[in-house]
């Protein structure tokens, strides 16, 4: 069941002098929902076009279901693509659009009708079969594009930023619908997006791309909680980053100095003294204490700060706290029953800390 459906081995691509994709290898398992995430120009669409066959790699091999397809044209790869602009044929009805792929395969018209109507029912468009694409809403066009691809029963469905043209609410709905569709069909989805929230909420695994490199490939939880590079930490969600030197290490602990306080943190990566490191803490992992909430002796391992700004967000209150060095950090405080006092005001003196071990420590990276 979980055999490898797609394998890229040392694949790279140049357009003129521009290295769109550096040598990259990925293995995608059958039935996986995998997302290629990154800003525009990061190479995510290039990966998709190499898999679909619209571009040929300069180096490396591409395998689909164990077969080398590096030199096969798109129409022979048994994949289908949902294009960013949908690319629905404007002169054809919804029905004819969806039937196009089956007609190319010379399937009997009776069988085509059955399969087209089945898939249109699945995407709830059977009433609109005789409409032209320009008589449909954005969300409906989106569903036609998916139906047109899925009706061919591809072994892998490629989706190139399919939700980027939809407005916020519709995009949320379509995310859920897509995920459900993928579960029901049981086929592999390779999804390209620049929206990190979308990537985290839909995928089994996320590949984060940057400037033609794949920075990290892992489950949404992995890439969020254990980023392997500063880029990933910054790109996925918000991150407070302290750059500092390891003073000493002992018993799986390392000691760093942050804002004048010596803190002993977990040394998960066997780092040694004198190393420069980045200590990364997510805003929601930071707890902010008002001065009258705690006793002075409890502040030993806490950082002092002044509230600069309070941003009310409904389910959370975001605080921008200025530390003694002038560095500003972001803390997200959740409303809950135990802690009713969330009415921070600006210029208030506070203490911040986090549960030891929730921070991520990365070796120092030179700023390029």
């Amino acid at each position, binding site marked *: 069941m979980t055999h490898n459906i797609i394998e890229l081995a040392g694949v790279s691509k140049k357009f003129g002098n521009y290295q769109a994709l550096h040598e990259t290898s990925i293995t995608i398992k059958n039935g996986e929902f995998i997302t290629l995430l990154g800003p525009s120009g990061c190479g995510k669409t290039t990966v998709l076009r190499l898999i*679909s066959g*619209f571009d040929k790699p300069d180096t490396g091999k591409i395998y689909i279901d164990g077969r080398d397809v590096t030199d096969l*044209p*798109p*129409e022979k790869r048994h*994949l*289908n*693509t949902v*294009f*960013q*602009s949908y*690319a*629905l*044929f*404007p*002169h054809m009805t919804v029905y004819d659009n969806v039937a*196009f*792929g089956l007609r*190319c*395969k010379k399937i009997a018209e009776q069988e085509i009708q059955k399969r087209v109507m089945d898939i249109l029912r699945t995407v709830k468009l059977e009433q609109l079969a005789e409409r032209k694409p*320009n008589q449909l809403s954005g969300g409906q066009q989106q569903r036609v594009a998916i139906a*047109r*691809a899925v009706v*061919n029963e591809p072994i892998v469905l490629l989706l190139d930023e399919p939700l980027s043209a939809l407005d916020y609410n519709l995009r949320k709905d379509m995310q859920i619908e897509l995920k459900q569709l993928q579960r029901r069909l049981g086929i592999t989805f390779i999804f390209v997006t620049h929206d990190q929230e979308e990537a985290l909420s839909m995928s089994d695994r996320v590949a984060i791309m940057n400037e033609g490199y794949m920075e990290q490939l892992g489950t949404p939880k992995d890439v969020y909680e254990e980023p392997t590079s500063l880029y990933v930490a910054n790109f996925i969600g918000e991150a407070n980053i302290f750059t500092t030197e390891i003073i000493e290490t002992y018993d799986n602990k390392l000691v760093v100095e942050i804002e004048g306080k010596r803190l002993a943190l977990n040394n998960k990566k066997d780092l040694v003294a004198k190393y420069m490191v980045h200590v990364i803490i997510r805003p929601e992992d930071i707890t902010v204490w008002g001065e009258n909430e705690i006793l002075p002796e409890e502040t030993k391992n806490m950082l002092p700060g002044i509230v600069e700004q309070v941003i009310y967000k409904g389910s959370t209150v975001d605080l921008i706290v200025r530390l003694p060095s002038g560095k500003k950090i972001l803390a997200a405080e959740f409303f809950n029953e135990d802690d009713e006092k969330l009415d921070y005001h600006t210029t208030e003196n506070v203490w911040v800390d986090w549960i030891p071990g929730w921070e991520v420590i990365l070796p120092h990276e030179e700023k390029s």
Partner: protein
Amino acid sequence: MKKKASFFKIFSVSVIWLWLGIFALTPIFLTFITSFLTSDSNSIVKLTPTLANYSDLLNHAYFSILLQSLYLATSCTIICLIIGYPFAFIIARSQSKHRSLLLLLVIIPFWTSSLIRTYAIMAILKAKGILNGLLLALGIIDQPLQILYSNMAVLIGCVYDLLPFMILPLYTNIEKLNQSYLEAAKDLGANWFTTFIKILIPLTMPGIIAGSVLVFLPTMTMFYIPVLLGGAKNLLLGNLIEHQFLTANNWPLGTAISVIITLFMGIFILIYWRNSDEEDRESLV
């Protein structure tokens, strides 16, 4: 501010109407009126209304001229389409730095008078011309081909002269065409032939029609190419009109033929209009 803008609007629209009125509508109107007047050898026309010019056209000699012109215009349009479509496609899909140069090459012939270019074609096609010289030198033929002063020469001349009018609207249409339609077709398993017939032709139909109209209409009334290259053996509609105006001095008959041609073209455009929707027509402009 608003008043000023509306003044400018009224001003510019009136200028356009005035221009069209003087230079387009008035000549058509005068032509139409003249076609119902009687010819007169002393003054150009006599102000006696008559339908005689139109009834004269029922003559079978005129009818065969009409057929011949239609035949020439149709073959010329089809050949231009066959040559022009791949031509336009290649230009539209070439790298942008080459594209403007290729387009320039299409347009350059316009810098020389069409009449002079027709003489150049004569120089190529004549018995001792460049083409025969080349073919003889290569040993492909052993006596000169008699192309000049034949229907073939007229056809070659018309295709040469009007090909850019086919290429340019097709180019505009294909260039605007979203590449992803072709990729989608390929993605869905279509081979190039299916993609061409089912996707490319329907989506570039506005360009095909615009190009065809722009080639068909001038060919119908082309007069100097048949005279120069066809040796005036075959009279076409254009020659007939020219003859009525310049030689026979029968302006009313000449205008009657023009009106008939205009009606013909009008019907063509009407048929297209009926069979197209708003969007197609918009992309035509």
